[in-house]
């Protein structure tokens, strides 16, 4: 016995405390019990509480309590995850890293309070919802590895559309580190900006199982995501807080895939419709053009015929007018000619002679004045039917 004791190292008290804590650091524990003696230290970001069952009590300490955002209160049934730590004062305390509410009652209460607070803050507002692209080229999938949710999403996308690359980021979807891994996965995709849409999916479970998706961290991370996000978490009729903040909520992972990508057959039918439609539109256009040409042709012919008719009418009118004018002209000239003839006739010396007048001549020269003759001159008087020769016996003026 003394040989065994001789081989055991001797510690100082401080060394002993360090030794125990090194041992316990490698062996984290999950402890389930009821919270009692809860103390939130004002102005400090940590709290103390006891966790107990019927027969025992364990002391707990949680640092950065406010940032964990899990409502702790006396009477709540919880599961804590942490490491037993021997304090310098000799007390054994569980250094709590994560707290999970268990029992629907407590979870519902926390859910409701957080939902009201986040809703009031506006995180669920419709104005923040982003549109899901119709034809994504790449999709980020956050789900449990080898989970039904993963298989459902991948199968549906492949069968429904196919023209897409899926980047799968496997995460824990419940229990310890689930919240942290989901947050990190969302941040990963947002940092790299390599996908057009995110799907966060997991199958059904109890409120306790789905706690990570009701945590404030996950909700805020989805809200902050620049990539449109589809959530498909849990049961059809139960909405986690992540579902409220997502851009679109799908009832199931399969439905999420249907929202994320179009249906190949529907798109093919749409292309057929477009093909028929453009053919119909162009045919209608050509028919319309043909009708327009025929109409223009008819109008042109009518205009030309009208024009020709008017020209013919004009010509006829002009012709008639010209005939009238020419006739009148001829008539006028004839009348003038007749008048001239009449005048000429009146001026004809023979007609004067016929009226009893005679032309007096002296030595062949016509005499019109008595001063041109004297007594004894021989004159001739031309009458209509001959000539009289005579000698002037008297000259008398009148």
């Amino acid at each position, binding site marked *: 016995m003394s040989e065994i004791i001789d081989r055991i190292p001797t510690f100082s008290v401080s060394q002993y405390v360090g030794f125990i804590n090194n041992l316990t650091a490698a062996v984290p524990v999950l402890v389930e019990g009821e919270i009692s003696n809860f103390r939130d230290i004002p102005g400090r970001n940590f709290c103390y509480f006891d966790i107990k069952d019927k027969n025992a009590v364990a002391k707990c300490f949680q640092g950065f309590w406010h940032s964990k955002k899990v409502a702790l209160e006396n009477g709540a049934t919880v599961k804590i995850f942490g490491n037993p730590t021997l304090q310098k004062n000799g007390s054994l305390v569980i250094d709590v890293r994560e707290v999970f509410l268990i029992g629907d009652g407590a979870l519902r209460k926390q859910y409701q309070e957080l939902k009201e607070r986040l809703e009031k803050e506006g995180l669920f507002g419709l104005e923040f919802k982003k549109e899901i692209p119709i*034809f994504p080229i790449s999709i980020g999938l956050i789900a449990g590895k080898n989970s039904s949710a993963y298989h459902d999403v991948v199968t549906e*996308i492949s069968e429904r*559309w196919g*023209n897409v690359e899926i980047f799968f980021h496997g995460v824990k979807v419940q229990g310890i580190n689930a919240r942290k891994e989901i947050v990190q996965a969302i941040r990963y995709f947002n940092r790299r*900006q390599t996908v057009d849409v995110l799907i966060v999916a997991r199958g059904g479970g109890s409120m306790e199982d789905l706690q990570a998706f009701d945590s404030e961290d996950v909700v805020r991370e989805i809200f902050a995501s620049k990539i449109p996000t589809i959530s498909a978490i849990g049961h059809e009729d139960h909405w986690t807080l992540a579902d409220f903040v997502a851009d679109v909520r799908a009832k199931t992972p399969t439905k999420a895939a249907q929202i994320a990508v179009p249906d190949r057959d529907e798109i093919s039918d749409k292309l057929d419709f477009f093909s028929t*439609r*453009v053919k119909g539109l*162009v045919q209608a256009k050509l028919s319309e053009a043909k009708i327009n040409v025929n109409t223009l042709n008819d109008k042109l012919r009518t205009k030309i015929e009208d024009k020709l008719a008017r020209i013919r009418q004009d010509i006829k009118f002009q012709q008639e007018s010209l005939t009238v004018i020419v006739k009148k002209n001829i008539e006028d000239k004839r009348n003038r000619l007749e008048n001239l003839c009449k005048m000429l006739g009146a001026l004809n010396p023979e007609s004067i002679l016929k009226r009893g007048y005679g032309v007096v001549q002296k030595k062949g020269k016509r005499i019109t004045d008595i001063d041109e003759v004297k007594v004894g001159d021989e004159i001739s008087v031309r009458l209509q039917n001959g000539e009289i020769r005579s000698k002037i016996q008297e000259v008398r003026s009148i």
Partner: protein
Amino acid sequence: MVKKTESFEGLFKEIQKAVEDLEQNKLSVDNAMEKYQEAIKKIATARKIIDKMETKISEISVKQ
């Protein structure tokens, strides 16, 4: 966002635009014929893409 070059979405939108332009009936006959021929070619290309579509899956490994 992922850069989209020669994407199906781009092609689909161009086809929709061609249909809308023809429906508005403001194009000349020559332009309408040209638009129609372009649309038919694009529809054929889109159909080829649909026929060849396949899903690629990449798993991300990140140290937690």
